[in-house]
């Protein structure tokens, strides 16, 4: 499989205002970043605020130049083959901005489609197709300023698809969306994947990344911390399966017996009355489950470490701080 995106030693810095007197002349947004996004995949980019996700999207969208390093989109250099790269990409920035709110959805899309050099009949056809796809046909002639957040975001997605791009960059597209709109949005992403489009999605939402992404890359401080399949990336924090259970009453004896089982490597309390056993293999899991059923444990579940745990483990809980 070829790569839709390839970065090698990508570095991007921003000059700081000298008047700010921070003692630094520049801030590093991306630090020797190496990244590969396979064609046809949905690739999640996870990281806290200031990690460099939007900077990377902007470089791939050609609105920002790399300071150092190589960046290729479908094998084309973003520096020297800018116009060709632009034909292959669509970008959707999150948030309320990015649309002409005094115009209708149809007028917005007509213009964006025309900017990709389509003739008028093709512009009209593409616009109708996009409105249909994002479910805005019935509201197409209403001004965008009256749209809900979810409708605006669907129009954003349609705008990003105006040029029928091979690579779609989605920069935190579900921020501020209600759960139903976010779910609809994810199903649209899934549809696009089935059509063979490559999607690079930046998000804070672990569930979103786990649900829609084939591969996730965790970045922080402009560096890649980890990358892999969101369902197996949990191995980075633990290779073990876990069994969680509720237990009413003294649990010490049960814990001791669990730890005596071969293949059980740990047992911790995760919340009052709820506990987690970590096992090294399937046999140990079966034995632990059997013992817990015998002792009257309830609400038993088995799972692998979730992406959220990996995120918190690698990036840490830094509250509101931004690097």
């Amino acid at each position, binding site marked *: 499989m070829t790569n839709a995106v390839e970065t090698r030693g990508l570095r991007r810095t921003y000059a700081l205002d000298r008047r700010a007197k921070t003692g630094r002349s520049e801030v590093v947004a991306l630090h020797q970043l190496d990244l590969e996004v396979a064609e046809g995949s949905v690739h999640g980019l996870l990281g806290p605020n200031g990690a460099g996700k939007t900077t990377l999207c902007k470089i791939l969208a050609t609105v920002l130049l790399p300071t150092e390093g190589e960046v290729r989109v479908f094998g084309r250099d973003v520096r020297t083959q800018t116009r060709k790269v*632009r034909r292959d990409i669509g970008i959707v920035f999150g948030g309320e*901005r*990015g649309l002409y709110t005094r115009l209708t959805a149809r007028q917005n899309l007509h213009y964006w489609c025309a900017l990709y050099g389509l003739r008028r009949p093709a512009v009209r056809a593409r616009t109708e197709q996009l409105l249909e796809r994002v479910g805005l046909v019935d509201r197409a002639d209403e001004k965008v300023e009256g749209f809900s957040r979810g409708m605006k975001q669907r129009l954003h997605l349609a*705008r990003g698809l105006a040029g029928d791009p091979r690579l779609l960059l989605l920069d935190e597209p579900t921020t501020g969306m209600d759960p139903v709109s976010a779910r609809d949005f994810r199903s649209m992403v899934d549809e696009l994947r089935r059509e063979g489009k490559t999607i690079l999605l930046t998000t804070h939402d672990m569930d979103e990344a786990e649900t829609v992404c084939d591969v996730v890359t965790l970045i922080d401080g402009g560096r890649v911390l980890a990358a892999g399949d969101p369902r197996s990336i949990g191995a980075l924090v633990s290779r073990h399966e876990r069994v969680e259970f509720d237990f009413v009453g003294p649990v010490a004896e049960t814990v001791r017996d669990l730890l005596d089982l071969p293949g059980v490597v740990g047992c911790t309390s995760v919340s009052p009355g709820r506990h987690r056993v970590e096992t090294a293999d399937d046999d140990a899991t079966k034995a632990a489950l059997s013992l817990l059923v015998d002792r009257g444990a309830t609400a038993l579940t088995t799972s692998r470490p979730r992406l959220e745990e990996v995120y918190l483990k690698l990036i840490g809980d830094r509250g509101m701080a931004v690097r």
Partner: protein
Amino acid sequence: MRVFTASFRFQCQLLRRSPGDLSVLVTAPFFSLLFLSMADQAHRSALTPYAVVAPVFMSVWSMSLFVAGDLISRERGTGTLEGLVATPASLSVMVIGRITAAVTVSMLAFAETWLIAWLCFGIVVRVPHPLMLMATLATSALSMAGTASVLAAVFVLVRSARIFQNTLSYPVYLLSGVLVPISALPEWLRPLSKPIFLYWGAALLRDSLSPSDVSSPVGRLLAVTALGAIGFLAGRLLMHQVLRRVRVLGTLGRT
């Protein structure tokens, strides 16, 4: 050309939704009233063509400056500037298409002035050279859009470029002989008038309203077109350089 026409149509749609942006069409009749009153009061009928042409060119040029300046700021404000730059279309062509639309709409100032002259002063402005009038208005509109695109490029780089916008209005009207004959300017200042396309355009427009033959019409139309083309090329070159610069600095989308 597709991007130009799409941008032209798009700006017309925006203007329909934002009638406040057409304020020049409100001020043009007042300017007409004022200038025609001054010519009438002074009993100088020779100044009547100036009183008719000046509000038209002032409206159209001020509209092109306004749109050129505001277009980039508004795109930044709505968060669409980065999206526009990320398309394969040339930002210069988009800008020129949109300024041309605004300029074309503001040509309605000519009809307003004509009506003011007739209704308030009983002056029926006749057009003995209609083709010349049309050609002058068309070349002047394109030249204004081309020249104003330089300003749009400056706005991409400098967010507080409003000062340029102001500098290029009244001093230019006076210098180019739009408002008063250049014979009223000091001798040493007059050579500065000719490199301004407005000088040629305004003179041609006045001549197209005069019964006598228009002298060297082709040469003068070419002068308007050539000066507009220089403006267009300068705007395009500057836009290219400026976009490269803001992509290096990372300031393209900053509001």
